[in-house]
């Protein structure tokens, strides 16, 4: 993914925490905030919806 002129390896980023990513890629001149944004563009946070939680819980309950 290209972010502000830097091409990041998405597959590699997905194996790292945001803190590890920021520490590793800090030399590009991007701020921590920008690096954090770049990281989450590649590795978006997944929120569990209430509906999904219900489905999972109901399936677990039927076992």
């Amino acid at each position, binding site marked *: 993914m290209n972010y502000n002129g*830097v*091409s990041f*390896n998405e597959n590699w980023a997905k194996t790292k925490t945001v803190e590890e990513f920021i520490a590793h*890629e800090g*030399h590009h001149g991007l701020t921590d905030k920008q690096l954090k944004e770049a990281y989450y563009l590649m590795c978006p946070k997944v929120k569990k919806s209430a509906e999904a939680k219900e489905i999972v819980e109901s399936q677990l309950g039927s076992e």
Partner: protein
Amino acid sequence: MSQHSECAVTSANTAYKQCGAERKTPVQLIFGSASFAAGTYSTTAALKTAIIDKIKQAIGTSDKLFPIPVILDVKDATVSAKKASFGLGLEIQVQRAKQGYDFLIKSNSDLEKELIKFDGKIIPTLIFDDHNQLWGKFDTDLNFEGADYMVNVTPKGYDDGNGAFSTMVSIRLIDSRDFVENAAMAKIEFASDDLVGLLSVNLAYVSHSTNVHKISMKAAGVDINNPYSVGPLYGTEIAALIANFSAKSGAGTPTTSLAITSITYNSSEDVLVVTYDNTAYGTATGNIKLIPPNPTQLDGGDVAETELIAVTYAKP
């Protein structure tokens, strides 16, 4: 009484096809061992696409095609058929003509360094003429391909202030049958930038700060002070192709995967800045090999007519 010859049985019908093809003035040569099956050349569009794809292949690919720059002048160097006569006068042909041509092409000393690699070799050659006809031959399986020619390259000398001079590429036909019996032609309308060779661009290590390495992208030439860098034109586009880059580490020819985590183009220094995974880099020993995108991948990333050459360097 009519005269009969048993030879006449084996002769051919001789109708003249008014729309039949004939060779016109050559405008470009294409060297290389690509062969196109009937399924490909059955449509002009498919054959055109296949030819362009072969041009975009990397050096070392067995069926890569090499388009030679546009022809400026043609001289027929065909060796005439040889004749001999019996003592009582009957003259017979003892050897068929062997076609040959000397082409002056648009070139320079940089390109001659590449062209000379074809010198003295027998190379399948397709010839594109000024009527959009691509001439080659059929093999025994009716695949369309270049006919075999001996190639020689004569570099341009110094000008003398009078004549117009350029690099000469000479071709001499190996088998006379490829010019007649096996001859084949495809009519293709190439765009002006379709038949263009790739520029070899060498990646080279420049400097580093721990696992962050600076890499140049230059085409070597005769001008020792000004090697041509593709960075200003394509640096950003090349960096964007990070998914097509890879790296390895190890002694000799590196084989251990070394992850690249980011690439950027530094325009002020005209270098790629390649960051390797710091953990893998810390344990890496010996050499590092940086493998760039292939020409097709580069073309897909808007880096036209370029082949980046992989670099292996000692881990600094």
